C-alpha cells in the first residue's frame, strides 16, 4: 500500500481526513552522506587539490566611509612567492559588472552590489580592497601584512538607533503595494486607541552573524579564457552559474559551479559576494587556479548578517482576552548601496484573529556591508516582538499565555483572506504543553524554585511560507535495480540527499542502499536555492515525478511484451519487491532483468520537472511551529540556563524523521544563541565590530544546550505539493527566542526586550 503522498492530489476534504494519511512505519534512514562526513572524505569548497594552485588573501579597509588615497604594495610585491597584488589600481576590467538596479541574488534586493576592485570608494569597514596572491597561503598572508593603504576619511553612520530618523520605505514597497515590505492596514485605523486593554513596547534585536563553521571559501579556475569553474560555498549552484556568466560576459554553459558539500551557511550563501569575484579576478590575472578562504573576522564583514532591528508594537485587547488591534513597526539596517529587506512583520498580519492590524516596515541605509537572510530571517526577528508582546498582554490581563493565544486562534488566513491549506497548531499546543510540563507553571512570575534557582516556563509560535519552486530531476535505473538521480540543488546540512533517497525508495520500493542522489553541481538539472525552507517541497515532487515516469516506462515495456496484467496498470500500482516488479493487488509480476533483456536495453532514464500549481492562488500555505522552554535563572548572578526545550512542528509530511529531528534541534540551538548570547557589538567610532571572532561572538556550545524534545504533527499537506511537505528549516528557529524570553520573565518577573538576555540585564 503506497503512502498517501504517492497519489494524485485529492480534494481538500480528503486531506483534512486524518484516516487518509497512512502512517506506515519505515525505518528512519541514516544520513546517506554520513560515512563521507565522519571519515573526513567529504570535500568542501576549499578542498579540491588543483595543480599549480595559488592562494589569495584579502586586505580590508580600515575606515567605514571615504576613498582610498594610495596603496603602497611594493613591499608585498617583493615578498617571496607573491604573484600579484590586486586592487582597483591594476585589476582587470570585469566586463559585466552589473549595471545599477540589478542584483545577482534571488529573489533580488534593490541596489548596486559591491563591485570589488572597481574604484577607490569605501562603503563599509573591512570592505575588501586588495588581494595578495602568492604561491602558498603563508606567503599570501605575509604579503597581505605588508600592504600599506592611505585613506581620505568621511564621516560615517553605523548606529541604527542614532540615525533611526533617516529610515525609509523600501523601493520594493513603493513599486508594489502588495509587497510584504509595504504598509499594511486592515480593520479600523484607530482600534488600538479605544481598546479596553492597551499594551505598547519596543524591542531590539542586535546584529547577528551566521557564522557557519566552514569559512566562506572559493577556488576559481579558468579552464580556458572563457571557461570558468568555481568550487564555491553557495546555496545555489545555478544562481552562481548565472551570475558569474553575466559578470564575465560568457555563456552560462561555460560556467560550472561545484558545491557538493557546504559546511553550513544559514543564509549567507544566498548571495554571491565580493570575495568570490576577487578570487575569479585573481585567477584570471595570475593565470592559475586561485583559492581564497575568508578569515573568521571577515565572516562578520563580507558575507552578510542578520540586521539589527528596532521594533515597536501596540496590542489592544478586551479584558476577556480577545485581540482588538495590533500595530507593529520595525526599522532594520541595510547597506548604503543595496536595499536589503525581509518579512519581519508578516507573522503579525496572519498568526492571530485580530480584526485590526497595521504594519510599517522601514529600512535604514548605513555605512555597513549588506545584510543577508539569516535562518528564519525577518520572521524570527518579528516573532521575537510579537510573541513577547502576546506573553506580556496575557500577563497584563491575568490569562495563561496559551489560553490567550487559543482565544485568538484563526482558522483561515486573515491577511490573505484565504483558507489555510493545512494548519494543525492545536495539536502542537496540546502536545507541547504536556511535554514541557506546563502544569508546573505558575501564572505569577517568580513563584517556582528548584533549590536556589528560579524556574520559568515560556512558549512562542512561529510560521513560514510553505514555499515551492520548480525543480528538475534526472533519474536513471539500471538492470541491477540501481537508481541514480541528479539535481543541481545544494545541501547546506539538513540532509537533502537523505530525504530524496527516502522519497524515491518509498515511491518505488527500491531499497535505499541502491539509490543515489547527486547534488551540488550546476551541470545537473535545474533547481533553485537551498533557502526559504523550500527544498523538500520543490525537489521532492521532482523526485516523485521522475520515479513515477520510470515506473510508467516499465509498465509500458511489460505490457508491450504481452504481460496483459500491466496493460491498464498505473505507476501507483507498481512496486519493486527485491528484484521483482509487482502490481498491487495482482499476482502479476516480472523481474527487472527479464524486462531489460526482452527489450535489449541496459537502463532506462527520465528527466522530470515539477512546478507549483494553481492551488497556490486558492490557499494560504504555511508551516507552523511552537517552541516551549523551561529555564533556570540564578537570582543573584542573573545566569540563565535553558533546562529543556520542546519543539512542535506542523511541517506537513516528515519525509526523513531522523534528519528532520536534527534540523529542529539545530534550530532550537540557534534560538538559544539568539535569546542568550549572540550580539555583534559595533564600535561606532570606527564602524567596526568589537566582537569579531568566536571568542567574542558567543554561539551556543555543548554546555549551553539541554535535551531538546521534538514533536512532529506529521500530516501531509497535499495542496502545498505532492510530497505533502511544508518545510522545516526556518520554523525550527522562529519563536524560540521569545519562548526563552517569556520563560525568563516567568522565572524572574523581569522582561528583557533587547536581546540577548545577558546576566547584566537581570540583576
Amino acid at each position, binding site marked *: 500500500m503506497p503512502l498517501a503522498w504517492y497519489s494524485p492530489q485529492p480534494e481538500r476534504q480528503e486531506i483534512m481526513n486524518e484516516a487518509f494519511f497512512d502512517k506506515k512505519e519505515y525505518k528512519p534512514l541514516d544520513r546517506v552522506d554520513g560515512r563521507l562526513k565522519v571519515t*573526513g*572524505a567529504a570535500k568542501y569548497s576549499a578542498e579540491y*587539490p588543483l595543480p599549480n594552485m595559488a592562494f589569495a588573501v584579502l586586505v580590508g579597509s580600515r575606515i567605514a566611509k571615504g576613498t582610498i588615497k594610495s596603496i603602497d604594495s611594493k613591499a608585498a610585491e617583493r615578498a617571496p612567492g607573491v604573484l600579484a597584488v590586486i586592487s582597483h589600481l591594476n585589476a582587470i576590467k570585469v566586463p559585466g559588472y552589473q549595471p545599477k538596479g540589478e542584483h545577482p541574488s534571488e529573489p533580488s534586493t534593490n541596489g548596486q552590489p559591491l563591485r570589488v576592485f572597481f574604484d577607490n570608494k569605501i562603503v563599509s569597514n573591512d570592505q575588501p580592497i586588495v588581494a595578495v596572491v602568492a604561491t602558498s597561503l603563508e606567503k599570501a598572508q605575509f604579503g597581505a601584512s605588508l600592504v600599506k593603504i592611505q585613506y581620505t576619511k568621511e564621516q560615517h553612520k553605523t548606529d541604527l538607533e542614532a540615525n533611526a530618523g533617516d529610515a525609509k520605505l523600501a523601493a520594493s514597497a513603493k513599486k508594489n503595494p502588495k509587497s510584504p515590505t509595504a504598509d499594511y492596514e486592515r480593520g479600523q485605523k484607530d482600534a488600538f486607541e479605544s481598546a479596553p486593554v492597551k499594551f505598547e513596547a519596543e524591542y531590539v534585536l542586535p546584529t547577528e552573524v551566521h*557564522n557557519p563553521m566552514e569559512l566562506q571559501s572559493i577556488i576559481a579556475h579558468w579552464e580556458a579564457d572563457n571557461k570558468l569553474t568555481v568550487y564555491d560555498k553557495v546555496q545555489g549552484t545555478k544562481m552562481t552559474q548565472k551570475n558569474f556568466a553575466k559578470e564575465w560576459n560568457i555563456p552560462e554553459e561555460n560556467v560550472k559551479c561545484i558545491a557538493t558539500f557546504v559546511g553550513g551557511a544559514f543564509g549567507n550563501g544566498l548571495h554571491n559576494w565580493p570575495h568570490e569575484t576577487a578570487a575569479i579576478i585573481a585567477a584570471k590575472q595570475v593565470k592559475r587556479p586561485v583559492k581564497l578562504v575568508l*578569515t573568521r573576522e571577515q565572516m562578520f564583514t563580507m558575507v552578510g548578517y542578520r540586521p539589527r532591528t528596532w521594533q515597536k508594537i501596540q496590542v489592544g485587547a478586551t479584558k476577556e482576552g480577545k485581540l482588538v488591534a495590533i500595530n507593529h513597526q520595525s526599522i532594520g539596517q541595510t547597506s548604503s548601496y543595496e536595499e536589503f529587506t525581509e518579512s519581519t512583520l508578516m507573522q503579525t498580519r496572519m498568526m492571530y484573529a485580530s480584526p485590526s492590524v497595521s504594519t510599517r516596515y522601514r529600512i535604514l541605509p548605513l555605512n555597513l556591508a549588506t545584510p543577508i537572510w539569516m535562518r528564519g530571517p525577518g520572521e524570527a526577528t518579528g516573532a521575537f516582538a510579537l510573541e513577547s508582546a502576546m506573553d506580556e498582554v496575557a500577563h497584563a490581563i491575568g490569562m495563561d499565555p496559551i489560553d490567550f493565544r487559543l482565544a485568538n486562534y484563526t482558522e483561515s488566513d486573515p491577511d490573505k483572506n484565504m483558507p489555510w491549506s493545512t494548519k494543525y497548531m492545536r495539536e502542537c499546543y496540546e502536545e507541547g504543553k504536556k511535554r514541557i510540563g506546563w502544569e508546573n507553571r505558575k501564572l505569577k512570575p517568580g513563584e517556582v524554585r528548584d533549590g536556589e534557582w528560579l524556574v520559568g516556563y515560556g512558549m512562542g509560535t512561529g510560521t513560514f511560507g510553505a514555499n515551492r519552486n520548480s525543480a528538475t530531476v534526472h533519474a536513471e535505473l539500471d538492470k541491477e535495480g540501481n537508481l541514480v538521480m541528479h539535481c543541481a540543488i545544494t545541501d547546506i546540512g539538513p540532509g537533502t540527499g537523505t530525504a530524496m533517497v527516502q522519497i524515491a525508495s518509498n515511491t518505488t520500493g527500491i531499497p535505499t542502499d541502491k539509490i543515489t542522489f547527486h547534488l551540488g553541481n550546476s551541470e545537473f538539472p535545474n533547481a533553485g536555492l537551498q533557502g526559504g525552507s523550500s527544498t523538500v517541497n520543490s525537489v521532492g515532487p521532482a523526485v516523485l515525478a521522475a520515479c513515477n515516469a520510470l515506473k510508467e516506462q516499465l509498465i509500458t515495456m511489460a505490457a508491450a511484451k504481452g504481460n496483459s496484467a500491466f496493460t491498464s496498470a498505473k505507476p501507483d500500482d507498481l512496486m519493486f519487491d527485491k528484484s521483482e516488479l509487482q502490481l498491487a493487488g495482482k499476482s502479476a509480476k516480472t523481474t527487472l532483468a527479464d524486462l531489460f533483456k526482452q527489450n535489449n536495453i541496459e537502463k532506462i532514464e527520465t528527466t522530470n520537472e515539477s512546478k507549483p500549481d494553481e492551488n497556490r492562488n486558492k490557499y494560504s500555505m504555511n508551516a507552523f511551529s511552537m517552541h516551549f522552554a523551561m529555564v533556570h535563572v540564578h537570582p543573584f548572578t542573573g545566569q540563565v540556563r535553558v533546562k529543556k526545550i520542546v519543539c512542535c512542528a506542523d511541517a506537513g509530511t516528515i519525509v526523513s524523521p531522523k534528519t528532520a529531528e536534527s534540523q529542529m534541534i539545530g534550530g532550537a540551538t540557534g534560538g538559544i544563541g539568539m535569546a542568550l548570547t549572540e550580539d555583534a557589538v559595533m564600535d561606532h567610532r570606527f564602524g567596526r565590530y568589537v566582537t569579531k*571572532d568566536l571568542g567574542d561572538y558567543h554561539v551556543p*556550545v555543548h*554546555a549551553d*544546550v539541554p535535551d531538546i524534545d521534538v514533536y512532529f504533527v506529521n500530516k501531509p499537506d497535499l495542496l502545498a505539493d505532492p510530497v505533502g511537505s511544508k518545510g522545516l528549516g526556518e520554523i525550527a528557529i522562529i519563536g524560540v527566542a521569545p519562548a526563552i524570553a517569556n520563560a525568563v520573565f516567568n522565572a524572574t518577573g523581569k522582561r528583557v526586550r533587547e536581546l540577548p538576555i545577558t546576566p547584566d540585564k537581570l540583576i
Partner: protein
Amino acid sequence: MDKNKSNKKPEKEDHQESRRDFLKASSILTAIAVAPATVAKAAEYNLGEKISAAFETTPVNLTINGAKKQLAVEPRSTLLDVLREQLNLTGTKKGCDYGQCGACTVHVNGQRVLSCLSLVVMQEGKEVTTIEGIAKGDELHPMQKAFIKHDGFQCGYCTPGQIMSGIACINEGHAETKEDIKEFMSGNICRCGAYPNIVKAIQEVKNGGQKS
C-alpha cells in the same frame, strides 16, 4: 593508540641527512641571493617558487596516521595548514584559525590538540592522528559509527573535530557523566546544533567501553 610507539624518536640518520640537504641547498641559494640579477633571471624562468621554497623551509620528521613523513615546511606553517594544503588531508577543518572552534582538533601523541595553534616544526618526532587515520580500513572507528547512528552532525564540517575530541574526551576520563561530556566538549562548536546527538554518540561509545 600505542603511547610507547609515539614517544619513539625518529631515526637519527634520516634527520641529519635531511638537515644536510637543507644546508647544501641553502648555501647555494645564499650565493644566488646575493646576486640580485641572477635571482631576477631565475624568476623569469619561473624558478622563483622553487628557490624561495628551498630557501625558507625546515625539515621535519613526524608520523601521520601511522606513516613516517619527511616534510620541508616553513617555520611559520601551522600543522593545520600543512595537513590541508601540503598533505591534502582535508578532513581536518579550518573554522577559525584562532583555537576557538575545535574544528581542527587532531591527536598528537594521543592527546587532543588544536592543529591551527600548533606549528609543524614543533611536531618533530611526534605522532599525529587525523580523522583519516582512525578507521581500520573499511571498518569505521566506534565513534564514527556512533555519530552516524545518532545523527551527530548536519553539514559535517565540525564533525572530524568533534569525533577526535570525543575520542580524547573518553580517554581522558572526562566522559563519566553527560554533564562532564558537555563541559569537556564545549571547545568544539557545532553551528548546525547537533550537540545533544553528539553527546549521545559519545555516551554510547563510552558505555561500550571503547577506547581509541
